């Protein structure tokens, strides 16, 4: 099997030095973790490895041999497989076709659909994923699509496999599967690269790690287990960070938001919950538990079959997101790319799209100066890494895009209820810490904050109270004092399954 070496790699985009003389090496049978703040250049490095970008300088060596990839096909042919941060699938094709895209088996010139399904079914089974290879990707949940992507990479039988934040849209069960898979691949002697912002994961999987900051390599630790957590964080963000959740208990106000009997197409039964002003309410559950569905109903994004929402005792006629926003309820959606960003618009535009209606000149014209100022303020406040507010948002790193969407809602002046669906997905520790601070600040100002997260430590760390969902139902509620990983998981997992190894708490 092969070793992988980056030698003095550089890549410049207009206004951004994404990589600046990065060198390190990954060996066969090793999992090399890559860490770094959002925009540090991790994904860019993988895109160079995958033949998507040409480096502006430096060399890429596999088994000591210099490689120049001019297309993704070259990289695949050289035995490199990449699982990209932004999922790359074709929704109208089947699981089997997606997995074998570009390499469909043929018989006498015709696609051998049966063989394709069999091959993929075998591989899925080997990994431990239950999926029908004949289903179309459009019918699957994001997590399932992610598993398909992983299967695709594994099936290339590559010598070098790189994972770019593979767990960001997986929940517990799939994460387990993935971990097992990574360990197996390592034992087969492949060279693995693993990017994640979740330190627990890195500790569990990686043998060594390399830390990036601002496009530069800071350090490579050859033995991951020896490096203390604080050290990793300090290397990454360039400063010390104590408790990243930074929980502060607050005084809760009177009852503020009540959802009564919300009923929608994908929920088996009507759901209700209520919360006080100043409260941070966590929603936990496995993928597909129905948390997003519930919040979309509340927000007016999906058609309601029944139920009502009361805000400060007054019914909110939210039949569309616009109505909800007008009432002070905002939602930061889970699927950033599909539902969050206006890809070709600028950072400033993405921030101002909603709140600008308050500051119109004569009720009609935009105040460009004010909008620019607001954008700059948020870029500074949330440390959004962008060459300017005019940069197209799609050119930002994933984590920074997330911050821009968050800024969009924090800019709402009449904010009363802030719903965050997986807000820290793909966000670095430093930025997470900032987001948690913001969550607490917003709550402290008397707003309701709802946080959906599949990261158990996170919800436990920041929420005052936790609602757990399972199969479209609310399966239980935990207060901050009674909440623990085991308690939450017991409520989230299907009956009869227990003994799930809990990730170590910080």
């Amino acid at each position, binding site marked *: 099997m092969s070793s992988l070496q980056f030698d003095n790699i550089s890549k410049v985009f207009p206004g951004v030095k994404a990589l600046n003389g990065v060198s390190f090496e990954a060996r066969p049978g090793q999992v090399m973790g890559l860490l770094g703040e959002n925009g540090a250049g991790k994904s860019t490095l993988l895109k160079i490895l995958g033949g998507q970008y040409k480096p502006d300088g430096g060399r890429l060596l596999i088994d000591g041999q210099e490689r120049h990839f001019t*297309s993704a*096909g070259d990289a*695949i042919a050289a035995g490199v497989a990449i699982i990209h941060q932004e999922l790359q699938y074709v*929704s109208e*094709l089947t699981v089997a076709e997606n997995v074998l*895209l570009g390499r469909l088996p043929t018989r006498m010139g*015709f696609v051998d659909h049966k063989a394709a399904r069999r091959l993929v079914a075998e591989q899925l089974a080997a990994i431990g994923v239950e999926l029908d290879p004949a289903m179309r990707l459009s019918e699957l949940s994001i997590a399932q699509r992610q598993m398909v992507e992983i299967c*695709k990479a594994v099936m290339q039988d590559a010598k070098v496999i790189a994972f770019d934040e593979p767990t960001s849209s997986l929940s517990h069960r799939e994460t387990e599967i993935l971990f097992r898979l990574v360990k197996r691949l390592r034992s087969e002697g492949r060279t693995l690269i693993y990017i994640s912002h979740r330190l627990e994961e890195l500790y569990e999987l990686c043998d060594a790690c390399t830390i990036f900051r601002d496009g530069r390599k800071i350090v490579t630790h050859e033995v991951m287990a020896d490096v203390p957590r604080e050290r990793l964080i300090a290397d990454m963000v360039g400063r010390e960070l104590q408790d990243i959740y930074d929980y502060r208990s607050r005084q809760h106000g009177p009852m503020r938001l009540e959802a009564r009997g919300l009923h929608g*197409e994908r929920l088996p039964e009507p759901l209700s919950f209520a919360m006080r002003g100043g409260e941070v309410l966590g929603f936990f559950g496995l993928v597909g538990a129905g948390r997003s569905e519930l919040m979309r109903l509340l927000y007016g994004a999906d058609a309601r079959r029944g139920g009502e929402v009361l805000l400060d005792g007054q019914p909110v006629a939210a039949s569309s997101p616009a109505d909800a926003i007008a009432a002070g309820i905002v939602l930061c959606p889970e699927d950033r790319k599909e539902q969050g960003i206006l890809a070709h618009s600028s950072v400033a535009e993405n921030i101002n799209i909603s709140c600008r209606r308050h500051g119109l000149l004569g009720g009609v014209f935009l105040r460009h100066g004010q909008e620019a100022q607001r954008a700059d303020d948020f870029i500074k406040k949330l440390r959004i890494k962008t060459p300017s507010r005019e940069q197209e948002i799609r050119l930002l790193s994933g984590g920074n895009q997330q911050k821009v969407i968050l800024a969009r809602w924090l800019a709402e002046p009449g904010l009363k209820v802030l719903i965050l669906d997986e807000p820290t997905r793909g966000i670095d520790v430093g930025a997470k810490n900032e987001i948690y601070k913001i969550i607490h600040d917003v709550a402290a100002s008397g707003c309701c904050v709802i946080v959906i997260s599949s990261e158990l430590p996170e919800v436990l760390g920041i929420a005052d109270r936790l609602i757990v969902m399972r199969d479209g139902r609310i399966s239980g509620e935990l207060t901050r004092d009674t909440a623990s990983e085991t308690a939450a998981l017991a409520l989230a997992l299907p009956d009869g399954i227990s003994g799930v190894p809990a990730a170590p708490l910080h």
Partner: protein
Amino acid sequence: MTSPARALLKEHSMTLGYLLLFVVLSFSVENFFSSANIVGLLLSVAQIGMVACTMMLCLASRDFDLSVGSTIAFAGVLGAMVLERTGSVGLAIGGGLMAGALIGAGNGVLIAYLRVNALIATLATMLMVRGLAFIASQGQAVGIADEGFISFGDTAFFGLPLPIWMTAFCFLIFGVLLNHTVFGRNTLAIGGNPEAARLAGVRVERLRVWIFLLQGVVTALAGLILSARITSGQPNAATGFELDVISACVLGGVSLQGGKARIFGVVIGVLIMGTVENVMNLLNVDAFYQYLVRGLILLAAVLLDQLKTRGERRN
């Protein structure tokens, strides 16, 4: 109803809808259900049908081709001219097809490699090719006298003229191509998500050029057959043809956003277009009202399809 049965019904609702329409028309419209009329109907959509096969691929790969009408005209004119000069049917057909291939490949290169917007690129070729057809023929129709060539247009096998067989053959070929070859699956992939296809090692640019090239060849073939049927190459033939073909595809469920195509749907789309036209003429509908009816039918068909997909989503 059991779920697979329902799925099947949904899958083929358009087909069933068309069959129903067909039966109703057979009973209500005089002369509709006669072999002469059915043959006439099929002949009237032969060209559209052939080109719809490749247009389906083109749309499925998220592209667009406005130049087909001009290509039909040019291939017909060229074929007729070659025939006039050389008297060789082989050369005439070869020349026409070659021209189609070149036009298609040109479109493909412009769009795939030079990244010109497909609408503009093919609008430009549409103009240029039409210009060439006029220039080559000096604006005059080029007559065809060769009986061998003309027989392509009207020789019948088992009661059906050759053009109908050719169209059926195209549907077969391209159906297989779409569903059972790597070419077809990759076409859907680059339409559904070009980036994903590229990252999976699909040679996106090359594939797109091939699709356009095929489209050019098939369109040229349609043009040659048309010229045989009307015994002349006409420089102003098939104006507006492109919109008819695209409509037939979209009626058949091919998505303009790429990534979705079903050959069966396209067959139905083509038949709907032809049937409407045919019945209106049988019923002697006033020319002005024909516009109205055609618009309404088009709307009705997509609305129906739309309601179906909506209902589906609800379930």
